[in-house]
């Protein structure tokens, strides 16, 4: 898809770790993630519930303080080790915006659409005079007639319309990047398509970079340029959407793809499915964190923690010992078994 300045990174995440304390225990919600989000690109982040997708997104906006690693905007570190102070953060927040999953939670029920969409301009100190025009343009962009909707309250809007208002409010600052945290998973099939097409169109027209967080692999596949697959706070595979989904290299990605229901009669019955559940982030298994559930684990998997390494296609990386040249023979044996 369209990439205006190929390879130019908007946000770079390096060795990022985020910790929470849950009931007295430290939980690593994000654990050593490195990621490039390039300008104009649609980056998909997929994974099971609780694997740390939202936390990663919030870290990219410097909304949580990293325990380790850093986030930088256009090469400038804004959060984490070596961060440059408030200036960077406010720059980041002007250039990158976020949309959330639940359209019913994202809007303040006591504010009218006008106030909601104007708010970013006010907070960022954009001169009053420009507000009206920019608000109207943003609403136009998401396909809402300003005349009809400016005066409404959120409860007077449908779920799809709310999500559009949320997008308009994110766009009004004309950001370069937009992080969408499962923006359509609460919406209906038909509304979902409408929202997605609004997003895609904007992305093309404004050369907007998108991070698209989702459960839905088929959606990620059809929309994204690149996909990162997360498991238990770690990126286990990344690469172009087509490579990752059609030719997954990590057993976890394979299992995910395998689990996607296909709208074809009697599809699934005989598939090989992943057992077990996502472990608690307070108790990350040693070695490869996926090994307890991995159908293809072999000898060193419970002791060696693999990092991302080239696997298969162009730019495709997987954190799996199967692709470690050092383990190749054993790996082969395991693969054959």
């Amino acid at each position, binding site marked *: 898809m369209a990439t205006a300045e190929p390879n130019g990174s908007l946000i770079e995440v390096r060795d990022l770790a985020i910790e929470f304390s849950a009931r007295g225990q430290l939980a690593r919600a994000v654990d050593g993630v490195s990621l490039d989000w390039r300008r104009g690109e649609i980056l998909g982040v997929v994974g099971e519930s609780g694997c740390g997708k939202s936390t990663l997104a919030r870290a990219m*906006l410097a*909304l949580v303080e990293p325990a380790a690693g850093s986030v930088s905007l256009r090469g400038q570190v804004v959060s984490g080790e070596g961060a440059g102070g408030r200036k960077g*953060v406010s720059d980041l927040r002007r250039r990158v915006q976020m949309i*959330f999953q639940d359209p019913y939670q994202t809007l*303040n*029920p006591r*504010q009218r659409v006008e106030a909601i969409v104007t708010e970013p301009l006010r*907070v*960022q100190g954009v001169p009053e005079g420009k507000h009206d025009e920019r608000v109207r343009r943003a609403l136009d962009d998401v396909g809402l007639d300003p005349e009809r909707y400016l005066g409404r309250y959120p409860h007077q809007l449908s779920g799809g319309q709310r999500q559009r208002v*949320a997008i308009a409010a994110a766009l009004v600052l004309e950001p370069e990047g937009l992080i969408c945290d499962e923006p359509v998973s609460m919406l209906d099939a038909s509304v979902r398509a409408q929202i997605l097409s609004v997003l895609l169109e904007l992305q093309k027209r404004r050369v907007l970079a998108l991070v698209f967080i989702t459960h839905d692999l088929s959606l990620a596949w059809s929309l994204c340029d690149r996909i990162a697959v997360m498991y238990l706070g770690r990126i286990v595979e990344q690469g172009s959407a087509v490579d990752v989904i059609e030719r997954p290299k990590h057993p976890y990605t394979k299992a995910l793809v395998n689990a996607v229901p296909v709208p074809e009669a009697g599809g699934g019955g005989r598939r090989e499915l992943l057992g077990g559940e996502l472990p608690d982030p307070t108790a990350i298994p040693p070695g490869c964190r996926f090994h307890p559930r991995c159908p293809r684990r072999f000898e060193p998997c419970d002791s060696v923690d693999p990092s991302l390494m080239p696997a298969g296609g162009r730019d495709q990386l997987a954190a799996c010992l199967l692709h470690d040249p050092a383990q190749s023979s054993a790996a082969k044996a395991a693969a054959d078994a």
Partner: protein
Amino acid sequence: MSGTATPAGLDARAAAGAPVELADERLRDVLLGTWRGRISVGLLGFFIFIAIFGSLLAPDDPYASSLDVLAPPSWAHPLGTTEQGSDVLSQLLVGARVSIVVGFAAAAISALLGSIVGLTGGYLGGWPDRILDALENWFLVIPALPLMIVLARLLDPSLGVLILVIGLTSWAGTGRIVRAQVLTLRERAFVERAKALGAGDTYVIRTHILPNTLPLIFANTVLIVAVAILSEAALSFLGLGDPSRISWGTMLENAFDSGAPSAEAWWYVIPPGLCITLLVLSVSVIGFLFEEHINPRLRDDR
């Protein structure tokens, strides 16, 4: 119920941590939409009217005594007379003011205090919250009426002292409800979004937290008014009221002390209590209506 610091229903939700919203229905519809609401608003309006103009309406000097002691209702005294031969109706009319003034003023103090504590604690989190929360819990646990009694006994009773004492002992419920609401609001996406935009704390509180908490504070305060009215009456009944003013509570005190029950002087016993009851009832129903409105789950038509 004297000394109840927390209205029942609201707290249930605050305890459950459920978010509360006030939809944009018009205030009028909430209050006047049901016959219950209409009657309550009417009653409250009536009592407020009496509180303002009661002394003008009183047919007699409420303090004037006569030899007509504990006389049953008659044309001269539609509600009979007191043990001093004063006109019960006149006392009743004049007494409304204390109830209303104490009820509303104390509730205002309580609301202000509760909101400040709840907002600060809930929004700041951390140790300020822990301290304020402990304070709230403490005030919630301490039995309100005994505390009021002790305070009122230590200070010399007057209208101001009553208001202060009731207000200071009844804010904790509000504080807790507000805190719970702020805690859920703080996690709401629109607050996070505002923060993501770089908005400061005061901005977030002013535009996002407070407007969404106000309906709740308001509904709760209405219910506190009822509690405050009852508390004033109870304190007055126990002889801790403002000695220089007639209130329904002191009327009951005098009636009881002077043996009106054994004189079977129902006209002296029933009206003040009934007025307290009706006033509290109307205020409570209005409070419950707001509450119901805030929490649609409680609504009858589903």
